[in-house]
């Protein structure tokens, strides 16, 4: 049976892994190659890099990071953050990324999803959706870290990008992100049930049980988490042991 995936997410700024503490203070958390290798050894199924480099001068640094990691870590690598054009997608894939995630650019110009998946294949294109609940059973797509409303219904938007050629959806609840209260399971399930492509649940993981809930109750195909792994609270291996104990198929 296909295993449910656990994906640690690393924030990268100017070539270094950084950890946010309450979204204010960014602390250096090491060399991306070392951190990626450590997660690989713990049994991570994929690794996601989110490039949060503020200065546009430093944006090409992520390409070197991807090159170095892809030379030494032989599991799938997804890269997102600031991806605007098909050329951006190509550059990251050529550097060694297996998938590239597109967020704001897809909202601004949905055709970029069609164009990118047509050029490099759906399997390389992840659309990242940041959503906030606006009414019972209704979620709206936001951009810019939850500041800008788009007027798009999250479930409808997910269906739209799937039909445009996205191969996967990375779904983040902006209500839950950073809270450690667990995924927004209603949102996760609504999107996962609506689309025929895989959905990665993100935002809010505070315990290993939350990861398992994302799969069993949210029906996610994969679960993504950052802080729970970064700060040494838990390892990927512990997460998989708990998921298996709850009857979830995992790669051990």
């Amino acid at each position, binding site marked *: 049976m296909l295993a449910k995936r656990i994906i640690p997410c690393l924030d990268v700024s100017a070539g270094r892994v950084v950890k946010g503490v309450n979204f204010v203070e960014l602390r250096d958390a090491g060399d991306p190659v070392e951190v990626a290798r450590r997660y690989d050894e713990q049994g991570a199924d994929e690794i996601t890099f989110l490039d949060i480099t503020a200065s546009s001068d430093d944006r090409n640094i992520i390409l070197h990071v991807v090159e170095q990691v892809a030379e030494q870590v032989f599991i799938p690598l997804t890269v997102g953050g600031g991806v605007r054009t098909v050329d951006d997608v190509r550059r990251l894939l050529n550097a060694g990324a297996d998938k590239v995630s597109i967020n704001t650019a897809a909202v601004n110009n949905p055709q970029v999803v069609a164009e990118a998946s047509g050029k490099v294949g*759906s*399997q390389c294109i992840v659309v990242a959706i940041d959503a906030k609940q606006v009414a019972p059973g209704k979620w709206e797509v936001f951009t810019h870290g939850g500041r800008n409303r788009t007027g798009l219904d999250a479930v409808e938007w997910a269906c739209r990008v799937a039909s445009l050629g996205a191969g996967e959806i990375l779904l983040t609840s902006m209500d839950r992100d950073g809270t450690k209260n667990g995924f927004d399971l209603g949102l996760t399930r609504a999107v996962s049930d609506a689309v025929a492509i895989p959905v990665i649940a993100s935002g809010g993981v505070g315990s290993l049980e939350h990861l398992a809930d994302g799969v069993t109750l949210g029906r996610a195909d994969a679960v993504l988490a950052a802080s729970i792994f970064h700060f040494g609270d838990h390892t990927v291996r512990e997460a998989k042991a708990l998921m298996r104990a709850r009857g979830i198929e995992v790669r051990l």
Partner: protein
Amino acid sequence: MSQVAVIDYGMGNLRSVHKAIEHVANGATVVVTADPAQVLAADRVVFPGQGAMPDCMRELDARGLRPAVLEAARSKPFLGICIGQQMLFEHSEEGNVPGLGIFRGEVRHFPSERMVAADGARLKVPHMGWNEVWQKQAHPLWANIPDGARFYYVHSYYVDPADPALVAATTDYGIPFTGAVAQDNIFAVQFHPEKSAQAGLQLMSNFMSWKP
């Protein structure tokens, strides 16, 4: 010194394949090449692929690589990966295009009506992630890889060989499908050994020492 050619017909990034083979090359030289002469001169050949099969076939011919691929598949240790496996067959449902026709059989899309898990949940397509690979014949490329080991898959189409004797492995996803085929000097896989951590590196290491 022994040389491995990774065939580059312009369909995306071959860096991962290149680096993974280099990782297990044990002194062999690895070249990524679009030059038919270099393919013919190599001791071993890796035939990767990603994207859509119609584009892959078109680009292969645009670079004049078809004769070199056919010759390598006839005479050298040959490893096909993903679309590089699918292209060995007669025909694909994807874009309704002919393949190289080295093996008889069809490349098919996962049947949507069968994409249901045992618990009733919908199985997503593409089939993306780590799934169990069940070995259907003893083969040197399976050395030190446990039966049922998980490899990383990402695909919506799979090969359906006319000759069941070709099947070297199967995987279950709604239906049992062919995950690997083998015949003489050819071994070809639907999954991505270059992205399959230890199991994948072991398979590629086995390929590097294979003497068919």
